């Protein structure tokens, strides 16, 4: 369980557990969204470098997370960000 929590590739469990989620069938089972949980000392630039190899592409992550981020320079530890 703890391993899953620390796995940067893990998809966070959002919403109630349904039969479709349990069996892996249905449209939800096709969700390919990649999530990243913000850790101490990370910035959007560093996260972009990790996933894209180029920190200058951080606006892509910012744009995909405008619902939770207001300022690209302010991210919080434990925040889950979509990586487009």
């Amino acid at each position, binding site marked *: 369980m703890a391993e899953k929590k620390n796995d940067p590739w893990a998809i966070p469990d959002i919403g109630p557990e349904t039969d479709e989620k349990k069996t892996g069938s*249905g449209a939800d089972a096709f969700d390919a969204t990649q999530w990243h949980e913000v850790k101490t000392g990370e910035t959007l630039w560093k996260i972009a470098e990790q996933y894209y190899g180029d920190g*200058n592409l951080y606006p892509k992550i910012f744009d995909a997370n405008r619902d939770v981020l207001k300022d690209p320079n302010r991210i919080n530890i434990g925040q889950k960000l979509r990586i487009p």
Partner: protein
Amino acid sequence: MHRHVYGFIVMILAATLIAACGSADKGPAETALKAAEAAVNAAKTEVSKYMPDQASALDGGLAAARDKFNKGDFKGALSDAQGVTAKANELVSAVAAKKAELSKAWQDISTGMPKVVEAIQSRVDILSQAKKLPAGMTAEKFAEAKAGLAEITKQWSEATAASTSGNLTDALAKATAVKKKAAEVLTALNMPVPEALKS
């Protein structure tokens, strides 16, 4: 002499009785055969499409019933023809269930796959703008992923075309190939592989 004549008469009567009994079954057998033919004709197209192995069983059963009828075994023909009719009706129900199952599977995949393709396309577009690729990804690996995306797009349009033409079995077979390829591409791009693509 009299004994011989009586014996002969008894034999004739017995033969006539047997023939009469056989002839009594002829009409019902003929009707049952016609009903069986109609049931098989009604079921055959869909059964051949969704349960091809069962279609030959229907044909075989009907042929056996006809053969018995032609040989004068009307009781046997009647029984076989009734069995074929029952089997054909049973298969019509089974085909309907199979179609519902395939439709549900296609509905899931046709709703889900575009999301997967969109995620891959988005990552490929972003990585194409990167001055450097992320750790663990080579230019060759990225080129393979891009080629894989093109293949997925082509195979997916073939799958949807098969679905549009009503061939769900073919559409799902093609979609399975798309799922496999998409899982490979996602892995190459260091992206998570959704549950539905793992089976």
